[in-house]
């Protein structure tokens, strides 16, 4: 079913303030630290560009609030609706490239890139998070296969209706903000990988296919979820890296290993919002207390994940984040000063608090008649900042778990150790070219 786009309807999306999570990204983004992530689908057949073009026309009409560009206001950045058509481009210019930083120019904050049998969407985090992007991407795929087979789009597979809902572009952080909640405790600084940065363009990726059934059974053996298991492996690898460092290199390095795990808040709060709506859980091990076995690490991760996804605690974090945005003094600071403050705050506090990031987008479900055309999905995380150096993204489809590492350093040591750990656990790992 096609979406009717009424002009008066579009007035609602004429401009939008950035959501709470997105406010930091314009201040910290750069040509290298792009804050852009990618979702790809690898099909069993070559992409038919005619069908894709028609599918894009229908999908962009369904998600008008994504067709915006970033503008600079006096106090805050904002998103302004632009009418330029979404045109796919050939996928031959690097992964997760930055979007245009010229604020006067009409430049969208997402793109569709295509090559051979691979369709990808790249979204700036300013616009949405992984869940928002995956809903858009699934709709695009449904529209594409509907075009190929000459049928209408079945929106039920995306969990959304064919009509544009106002809730989809609301700032859910604001909706669930509660005033007068005590602030959360600040985290101490964490260990960072000691690797040397790559030459520009720094970002490179490594992708591996893992059997979902095998990793699931291993995680179940330990009584944990797949995310808990992968985070525990990441922490174990960080511990190995720290232990293998020469004694003199360890001097001055923090001994707390902490991994940031984004949590999709839509699982906790009933919202339809497709803009950013996630927070982080930070499982950690403290090497000042000694070395940890893998079983000990997974136990810590499991309990930390359970404790910190409690609704009351999440309320506390939302209130902290949104509260500072609502502060009248903060609101009155001109944007150029806000940019400076946010930049220094991000690098002095935010990026210092964790040693790595593991983002699990979950399992992508498609109707059976479409599934047979798809080989697998890939989720490439945004380029990490200079302190973090490595990011990890995970996505599942059918019996495959696809683990991708985005790296800006000169070594793949962490990735090697990570996949070797999995193979030693009896999980088959197949590295794949992307």
């Amino acid at each position: 079913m096609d979406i009717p786009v009424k002009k008066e309807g579009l007035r609602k999306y004429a401009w939008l303030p950035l959501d709470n999570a997105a406010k930091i990204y314009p201040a910290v983004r750069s040509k290298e630290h792009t804050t852009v992530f990618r979702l790809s689908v690898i099909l069993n057949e070559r992409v038919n560009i005619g069908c894709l073009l028609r599918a894009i026309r229908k999908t962009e009409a369904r998600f008008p609030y994504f067709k915006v560009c970033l503008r600079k206001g006096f106090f805050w950045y904002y998103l302004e609706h632009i009418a330029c058509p979404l045109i796919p481009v050939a996928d031959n210019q690097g992964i997760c490239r930055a979007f245009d930083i010229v604020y006067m120019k009409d430049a969208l904050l997402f793109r569709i890139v295509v090559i051979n049998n691979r369709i990808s969407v790249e979204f700036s985090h300013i616009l949405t998070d992984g869940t928002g992007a995956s809903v858009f991407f699934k709709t695009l795929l449904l529209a594409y296969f509907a075009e190929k087979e000459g049928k209408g789009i079945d929106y039920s597979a995306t969990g959304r209706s064919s009509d544009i809902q106002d809730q989809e572009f609301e700032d859910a952080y604001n909706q669930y903000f509660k005033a007068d909640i005590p602030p959360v405790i600040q985290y101490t600084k964490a260990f960072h990988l000691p690797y040397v940065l790559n030459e520009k363009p720094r970002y490179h990726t490594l992708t591996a296919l893992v059997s979902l059934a095998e990793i699931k059974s291993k995680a179940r053996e330990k009584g944990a979820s797949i995310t808990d298991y992968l985070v525990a492996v990441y922490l174990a690898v960080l511990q190995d890296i720290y232990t293998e460092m020469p004694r003199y290199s360890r001097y001055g390095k923090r001994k707390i290993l902490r991994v940031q795990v984004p949590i999709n808040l839509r699982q906790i709060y009933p919202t339809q919002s497709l803009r950013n709506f996630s927070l982080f859980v930070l499982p950690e091990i403290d090497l000042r207390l000694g070395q940890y076995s893998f079983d000990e690490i997974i136990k810590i991760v499991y309990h930390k994940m359970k404790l910190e996804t409690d609704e009351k605690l999440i309320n506390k974090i939302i209130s902290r984040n949104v509260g500072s945005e609502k502060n009248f003094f903060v609101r009155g600071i001109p944007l150029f000063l806000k940019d400076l403050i946010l930049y220094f705050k991000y690098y002095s506090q935010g990026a210092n608090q964790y040693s790595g990031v593991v983002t699990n987008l979950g399992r992508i479900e498609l109707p059976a008649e479409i599934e047979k055309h798809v080989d697998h999905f890939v989720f490439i995380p945004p380029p990490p900042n200079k302190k973090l150096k490595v990011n990890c993204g995970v996505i599942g489809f059918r019996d495959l778990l696809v683990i991708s590492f985005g790296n800006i350093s000169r070594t793949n040591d962490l990735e090697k150790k990570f996949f070797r750990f999995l193979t030693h656990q009896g999980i088959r790992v197949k590295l794949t070219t992307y």
Partner: protein
Amino acid sequence: MKFCPRCGVELDGSMDICPLCGCSEFDQPPTQEDSKTAGINRHYERLLDGYEHLTRKQKRMLFWEMSGIILFSGILVTLIINLVLSKSITWSRYSITVCLVLFANISLLSFWRHRLFLLLGGSFVTTSLLLILLDMYNQKIGWGTQLGIPLLLSFYLVIIVLTWIIRKTKQHGFNVLGYIFLSVGFLSLCIEGILSWYFKSDFRFQWSLIVFACMTAIAAILFFIHYRLNRGMDLRRFFHI
């Protein structure tokens, strides 16, 4: 079925060019082997393009070398003719000095074109040197240091500030014209000031004030057109707090 050899995507029968890359030469359905070699072929295509066309840097180097050859040939020829005819260096020193200053400026433009302050600073130093030398060749009447260099300095300063502002400006339009008009007004103030100091040992501004006022008024109109009328910006969204 048609396939784009560059992007590897399948095209509709009605499509004459690939909408992704604009390629108009299509392949037959590729085999698995073709898909593997597609990436390698693209790499070689790019290399071949590189051999056939010089890069901008190579073009700049070529221009610099050619200018060097022409200017130094000119220096050599005038020097020899002067020596043969007059048995000493007399009139040829003018052409030698001008050629050397010209070569220095071309070198600055070739190697420091992205380093604005070094480029303009270097150009100012070499051109000042030219004025001093020309002054010296003409019985040191002093116009080079007292008039020529201050005028040159004001000109270069205005150019540096103007270029810096234009580079910093995010959207180029009527605002650039506005900045140029303002610069012309300011430059006219400098010229009259320096001239009046040289001839009357006093700063007196007459015609330049009128020029400056006119230029400022025109610039104000241009800025208004650019920043208010052209953008049509909604104040509510611009100042949302």
